[in-house]
């Protein structure tokens, strides 16, 4: 099988640039690039919930519905992931999170510092939190979460 060598492949966030692909065009070869490191085409969600009982089933539900899901158990972990080079499109924060910052405070912080990120909070009806949040009140049907994550739902 003929192979060819890309002299310069650089990955900048969501773009992959290939320069000078030697020996490929003349032989009609194909260039296959694994995008698996970043899964760029899949919308990604950071899901923060304090217990595995809450987190694992909902994260798996989102994955089966086409999302890439990063999980975190605390707001501190969530901040670590948010400050990393992972591409994260949306935050779903359960209010049942312990640590230096609660889930609602984390959601609030992200909304202020990352205005382009969609932010959802999962909380009890009785909770006091600011009214700008997209809010899912427990108990909720999983489909309600999908509907709120959909780009056609207003609010960000």
């Amino acid at each position, binding site marked *: 099988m003929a192979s060819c060598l890309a002299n310069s492949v650089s990955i900048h966030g969501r773009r992959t640039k290939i320069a000078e692909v030697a020996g490929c065009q003349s032989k009609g070869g194909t260039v296959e690039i694994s995008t*698996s490191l970043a899964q760029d085409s899949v919308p990604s969600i950071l899901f923060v919930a304090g217990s*595995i009982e809450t987190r694992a089933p909902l994260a*798996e539900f989102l994955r089966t519905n086409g999302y890439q899901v990063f*999980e975190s158990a605390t707001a501190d972990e969530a901040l670590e992931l948010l400050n990393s080079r992972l591409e994260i499109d949306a935050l779903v924060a359960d209010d049942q999170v312990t640590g230096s910052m609660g889930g609602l405070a984390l959601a609030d912080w992200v909304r202020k510092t990352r205005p382009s990120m969609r932010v959802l909070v999962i909380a009890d009806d009785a909770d006091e939190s600011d009214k700008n949040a997209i809010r899912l009140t427990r108990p909720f049907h999983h489909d309600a979460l999908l509907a709120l994550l959909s780009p056609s739902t207003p609010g960000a």
Partner: protein
Amino acid sequence: MSPELASAGNEERPILLFVEHDALERAAIAGYLRECGYRVVEAVSAEEAQAALREHGAQIDIAFIAADLPGEVDGFSLAKEIQARAAGIKVLLAATVERAAKLASQLCEGGPHLRKPYEPQALVDWIKRLRIPKTD
């Protein structure tokens, strides 16, 4: 945990319980194993792993544990506990991220998709790159 762990998705995908305290390593390695076709349940601590095993122990095929878990039960103790109580679960223990990446790569080779997305060193390098703060 709700019954979705058992019912959603593809039944024949092996279920792997991945226990890792570090959020970035967990996200990266769990993502890698999912690409290889495993169904990965993420636990951030031995306590969470024990909760998952209590609820779904019979469905879990593999327990993949980082040895340096903080808390009362470390990775070694958790591994021993699973081996003693759940003989059907294959237990893997990794003390370093390099070792975890290597084990993940070996799991991929024996996994449902029969291919690995990339070499273990690329996975380790990627985790290191992820930690470099964004400049923009």
